[in-house]
């Protein structure tokens, strides 16, 4: 195989393994994905622009990106807290709690959606606590935020946790011997070390939230202009046989997702570099 850079290797199977990988990747991922871009070319630029900037669409962007950003922010704060508590403190049931952090990865989104809707509706366990104050959570944009926080919860915890575990205690001891308070040590030593991982986790949670569909639609209420997310709008357009319109929206979302993917890769590269340096 001429692609191989190594002058000589005794291991066999490079050609067949790479060949199969590329074929399968192309058939399942690359060719179907390229269909969205090709489909958009059937639209004129004006038609495309009108489709992706209609007021209802713009409202859905605002909600999707706004709620995703907020949810990722909440997860950055509380994910850091959860990671800290799980790594640094001992308390009964800690291992179970640790395992449950991955629940949003394992629980089907539809189940999460109906469960959150039930809990956060005005007569639900948690929703009823807020209802007397006139705060409605389920079936409002707040519900979207709750669902997106749920599905993004593991990302920050799981990116920060290993970095925190690897943090040498000597660094904090050194800061203490130099007179730093715990808070100063955290702000000046621990936090900067965790920052790349924290940002990576934030970006992962954000990227996941933008595309999320299943858990949101049950709790969102799905009112056009108010609580309608962009993925739902794509489905609505599909159901109206507006394939070109749906695809145009999909292309916008894909471009944003790919940009985020690039950012995440850069962040991970940064995090690795910072961890590798002695």
């Amino acid at each position, binding site marked *: 195989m001429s*692609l191989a*850079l*190594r002058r000589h*290797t*005794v*291991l*066999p199977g490079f050609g067949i*393994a*790479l060949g*199969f990988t590329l074929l*399968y*990747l192309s058939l*399942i*991922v690359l060719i*179907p994905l390229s*269909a*969205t871009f090709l489909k958009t070319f059937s639209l004129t630029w004006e038609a495309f622009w009108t489709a992706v900037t209609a007021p209802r669409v713009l409202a859905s962007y605002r909600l999707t990106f706004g709620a995703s950003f907020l949810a990722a922010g909440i997860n950055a704060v*509380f994910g850091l807290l*959860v990671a800290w*508590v799980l790594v640094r*403190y001992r308390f009964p049931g800690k291992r179970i*709690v640790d*395992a*449950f952090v*991955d*629940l*949003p990865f*394992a*629980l*089907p*989104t*539809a*189940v*999460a959606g*109906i*469960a*959150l809707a039930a*809990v956060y509706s005005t007569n*639900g366990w948690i929703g009823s606590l807020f209802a007397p104050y006139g705060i409605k959570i389920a079936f409002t944009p707040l519900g979207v935020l*709750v669902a997106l926080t*749920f599905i993004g*919860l593991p990302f920050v915890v799981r990116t920060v946790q290993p970095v925190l575990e690897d943090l040498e*205690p000597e660094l904090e*001891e050194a800061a*203490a011997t130099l007179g730093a308070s*715990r808070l100063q040590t955290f702000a000046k030593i621990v936090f900067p070390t965790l920052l790349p991982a924290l940002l990576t986790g934030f970006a992962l949670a954000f990227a996941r939230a933008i595309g999320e*569909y*299943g858990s949101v639609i049950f709790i969102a209420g799905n009112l056009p202009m108010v609580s309608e997310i962009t*993925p*739902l709008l*794509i*489905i609505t357009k599909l159901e109206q*046989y507006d*394939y070109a319109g*749906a*695809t145009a929206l*999909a292309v916008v979302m*894909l471009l944003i*997702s790919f940009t985020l*993917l690039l950012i995440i890769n850069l962040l991970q590269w940064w995090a690795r570099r910072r961890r590798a340096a002695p």
Partner: protein
Amino acid sequence: MTEAVLDPRFTLPVRTVEKATAEPRWVRLVLIGLALAFLGIFLFVPLAAVFYEALRKGVGVYWQAVIEPDALAAVRLTLLAAAISVPLNLVFGVAAAWAIAKFEFRGKNLLITLIDLPFSVSPVIAGLIFVLVFGLQGWFGEWLRDHDLKIIFAVPGIVLATIFVTFPFVARELIPLMQAQGTEEEEAAVVLGASGWQTLWRVTLPNVKWGLLYGVILSNARAMGEFGAVSVVSGHIRGLTNTLPLHVEILYNEYQFAAAFATASLLALLALVTLVLKVWVERRFAD
């Protein structure tokens, strides 16, 4: 050390100061409390609600919902989709990891990024792309219609969408693991006269079996639980193209809450089993 006997004087240590890098006790308690409260309202309460709502109308209603023919058909289709997509992605993951971890070639990093691509694509778009390719107005739409083949709004579409969303799971577990293990053992096997397949079966795969299993568990959970992508390509025909998550949605939208939560509780149990297996595999991993 010879004296392992505990002197009673030392069993109750007199600690006058906190350890140098520990927070005061009240800070620890507050932080633990906050973390648990956050996890409580976002994880534990909703999970408990699934089982509570499922059993609220009694075990009889629960059981009726679970053994109803449409529910059983949904279970069968869910199992089928997972049974096809997981092994396919497993084979792909091993092939991709073999090529990427054991050889050097140009564009490797790009390939790794492309393999991860399905993770950053919205499930809705994952469904949409197959509609664009195989749907009536898609590339192969007319050809498929002329040959009386149905992919979209039929089982093949559901399987394809499931394969897409679970595509990276095994590969992304195996690639870093096999990269870390290097090529020495494989080279030793080949020097000792093993063929390529023997090397793979007897050296490489046993070395990565826990990572492989980990990928399979996660991949299976996603395959059985996928909603968005499957929803787009399914057509929601009861008893025919409904997976369990779609069945939950239909029941919920028909206000059959007890039945919806009963079905959902099956999926929640699957999630719990997944978490238990995951922890178990991680333990084995650590050894």
